[in-house]
Each structure stands twice: as C-alpha cells, then as structure tokens.
C-alpha cells in the first residue's frame, strides 16, 4: 500500500516553460513534505520542503504547493532548464515524539527538459 504516489513516471517540458510535478499521499497524519532531485549514478539531493502549516514555499525557480484537503502537493519549476532534467522524488513524514525523520518516498517522476 503506497502512501505516497507519483502517478506520472515521466514528463517532458520545453526549456523556459513551467514544469509541474505532482504527488499524492494517503495518510492525513503526514505533516512534513520534501522534494528531492536525483541525477543518474548519484544519490538524491534535497531540493525544497514544506510544513503542513503552510500551503506554499518558494525557493528561486522552485515552488512547492500543498493542498491538505486534497492530500496533494506539487512542485513547480519556472523557468525549466536543461540542467533540471533528473528524477524527482516527493517524500512525506509524520512528526512523532522521536522527531520527523521517517520519510515515505514516492516512486519518482523523470523530468526531461528539452532545449
């Protein structure tokens, strides 16, 4: 039973346009969400995060939107660049007395930005 789902395995976007990557989750107790980016033969790297007390977080060209009622988050990349071509993972966690560390990751979306 996948608690974090990325239903689009791949996405192609023209350079300069907006890339929108989507992620759905099932556990309403999740309260912290992340996006990671992964290049081939490398480990994932942290991109951006959002807490459930917010509905938007922006960092440069990257914006994450959270819709708690729909249990949906999305990552917007504007403008998209060829160097953004990678696999993007969303992840979610529930804060417990031990902290927020047990992240459930989606299966990833492969983004290809076409020059």
């Amino acid at each position, binding site marked *: 039973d996948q608690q*974090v789902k990325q239903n689009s395995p791949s996405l192609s976007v023209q350079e300069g346009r907006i890339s929108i990557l989507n992620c759905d989750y099932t556990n309403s107790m999740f309260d*912290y969400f992340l996006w990671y980016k992964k290049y081939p033969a490398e*480990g*994932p790297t*942290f991109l951006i995060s959002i807490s459930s007390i917010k509905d938007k977080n922006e960092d440069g060209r990257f914006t994450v939107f959270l819709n708690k009622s729909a249990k949906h988050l999305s990552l917007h990349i504007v403008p998209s660049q060829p160097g953004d071509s990678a696999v993007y993972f969303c992840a979610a966690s529930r804060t417990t007395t031990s*902290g927020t*560390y*047990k992240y*459930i*990751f989606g299966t990833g979306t492969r983004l290809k930005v076409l020059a």
Partner: protein
Amino acid sequence: GAGVSQSPSNKVTEKGKDVELRCDPISGHTALYWYRQSLGQGLEFLIYFQGNSAPDKSGLPSDRFSAERTGGSVSTLTIQRTQQEDSAVYLCASSLVGRTDTQYFGPGTRLTVL
C-alpha cells in the same frame, strides 16, 4: 568537503551468501539513514541512527537484515542469507540533528543477488 561515501558501489553475490555494505557519513552528522530502492519503487526506509539513541529499525524487512554504527560514524548494513528479492540499490544518507529534511545521500550500492 567530502560527502557521504558508500562501498562497494556494486556487489554481485550468490543466493544464500552474506553481504556487508558500508557507509561513511559526513563528518559531524549525527543522524544516519539506510534506504533501499528496488526496481520501479520509491526509496524504502530501513533504519535510522541518531547519536547514541537506540536506532529505529522498524523498516528492516526481515531478521536477515541488521545494521550497526560504530563510534557514531561509519555504519554497516549486513544482509544474511541473501535472497533474489534483496537485489536493489541500497542508499545511505546522513544529516545534522534537527535537520532530517536535508539528508545528504551517498551514491548507493547496487546489490545483485543471483
């Protein structure tokens, strides 16, 4: 500075053999995580170490899997009596305490069990 390193990068083993995977975290990072990624799957949490606290082993799939962290630094993940379904990429990550969102991942060990 040096990132998280893992060894070996690739490991091919026969079913039933034991394997040891090593992770060297970033110096000063007290939190260490192991994940695995099977083909077509997301990253699956295996185990979490934080300082001297008891590790959270809730993600280990069976008692054939164990991990230890010596001296609060290097960690080894051991899989005993490997099975074909253990074939996956095993990723290690480390982070500063309180910054579990910003995990620094190693390049992974690709394990193939024949």
